[in-house]
């Protein structure tokens, strides 16, 4: 038995969604992680809690909240719609849902990496004349690369696997918003659909494992360069 066209569609969409979700989340996650790791500011606790919230809430709830915020009838959704941006019931919404669900994982990994950077190295870069932004891009960022990679792969895996929030926010329209997890879920709704589901589970796993191993490889390279091997 081979995966049917719908399964391939779902895989394609999932990859697309996960790709964009991860890509868009990286800079934001790095920034939030940096804020949480290095800055003290009013509302830091709130930000920290907010970042973790998608972990705690049942994904359906997150999906509903998204629907409430960005639905076609919601003011925010209407405003965005006026700008030509449609989120609810659209693959872009799946991207948003995947971003939000993966965000805590990305931020945490990057934050840990940032906390491990010796601020003395950043200070040293400053004494050599590098302004703040340059210090970040030439010292901090390269040093946290393994953490960024770790966060990215976690975010990507989560984006590939996200189901509850996605199906609630963008529904499960084959070829349009049906991601692999939604398709798997749908397959499980008919007796005998397990084989189709197993097929798709294997597809999802393969992609995710490939991503994990690729990230691992890259991280090893970075580490090897630092170790001088």
């Amino acid at each position, binding site marked *: 038995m081979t995966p049917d066209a719908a399964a391939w569609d779902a895989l394609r969409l999932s990859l697309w969604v996960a790709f964009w979700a991860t890509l868009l989340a990286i800079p934001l996650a790095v920034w939030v992680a940096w804020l949480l790791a290095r800055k003290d500011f009013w509302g830091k606790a709130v930000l920290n809690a907010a970042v973790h919230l998608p972990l705690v809430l049942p994904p*359906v709830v997150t999906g*509903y909240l998204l*629907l*409430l915020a960005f*639905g*076609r*009838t*919601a003011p925010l*959704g209407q405003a965005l719609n006026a700008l030509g941006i449609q989120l*609810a*019931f659209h693959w872009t919404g799946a991207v948003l849902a995947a971003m939000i669900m993966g965000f805590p994982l990305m931020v945490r990994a990057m934050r840990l990496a940032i906390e491990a950077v010796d601020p003395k190295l950043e200070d040293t870069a400053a004494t050599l004349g590098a302004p703040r932004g340059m210090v970040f891009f030439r010292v901090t960022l390269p040093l946290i690369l393994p953490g960024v990679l770790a966060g990215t792969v976690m975010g990507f895996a989560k984006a590939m696997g996200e189901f509850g929030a996605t*199906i*609630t926010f963008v*529904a*499960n*329209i*084959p*070829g*349009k*918003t*049906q991601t692999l997890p939604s398709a798997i879920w*749908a397959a*499980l*709704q*008919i*007796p*005998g*659909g397990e084989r189709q589901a197993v097929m798709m589970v294997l597809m999802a796993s393969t992609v995710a494992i490939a991503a994990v191993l690729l990230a691992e490889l890259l991280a090893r390279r970075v580490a090897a360069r630092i170790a001088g091997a």
Partner: protein
Amino acid sequence: PVTVFAAASLRGALDAVAEDFGADVSISYGGSGTMARQIDAGAPADIVILAAPVWMDWLQERGILGDAPRTYLLGNRLVLVAPADSTIAPDPGNLAASLGDMRLVIGQRDAVPAGIYSREWLQATKQWEALQNMLAETDNVRTALALVARAEMPLGVVYRTDAMAEPKVRVVYTVPDDQHSPIVYPAAALTDAGKVFLKFLQTDESMDIFAAHGFAPVKP
């Protein structure tokens, strides 16, 4: 193409029916509550088919459906199933006796339509109280069915349509349909395309396919 938002338990039958429709049909399956909320939030559905009348009522109250009359498209029956190779022969009026220290699997009592019907039946046969601590509730009928099919639990209450599609279970009892509220699948067309598709679903050919999957027609 026609976009259909349909209750998950229609999966299989509805796919088969849609194949014969002239144009492309996209069917987004989901839970009734979720879909109702999605329709409310402006989902691009041409037609919505739910498994629970309450959610259709809810949509109507919110004025989403206009004054288009709702259609009760299909009906279904509740059955008591056991693993195919089990020899259990329960007394439908006293399930507790057959369960021993095992549990009866039903959909969530207040959340899953099949669970609601099951509760009504068990209440009607006055064994709800006795079974209070002998239930295992699932988030949808399919999970309930799977648990019985895998012989994790000896008995479960599911739709007849599910039982028919799953060879690993055996129907041990069909619940009389006067012991719970009628099991009906209300449908509402939201667009003209939806109306066309709804008409198509109601053709005899379509109804035959539904019937072959175990659904019963609804007599208004």
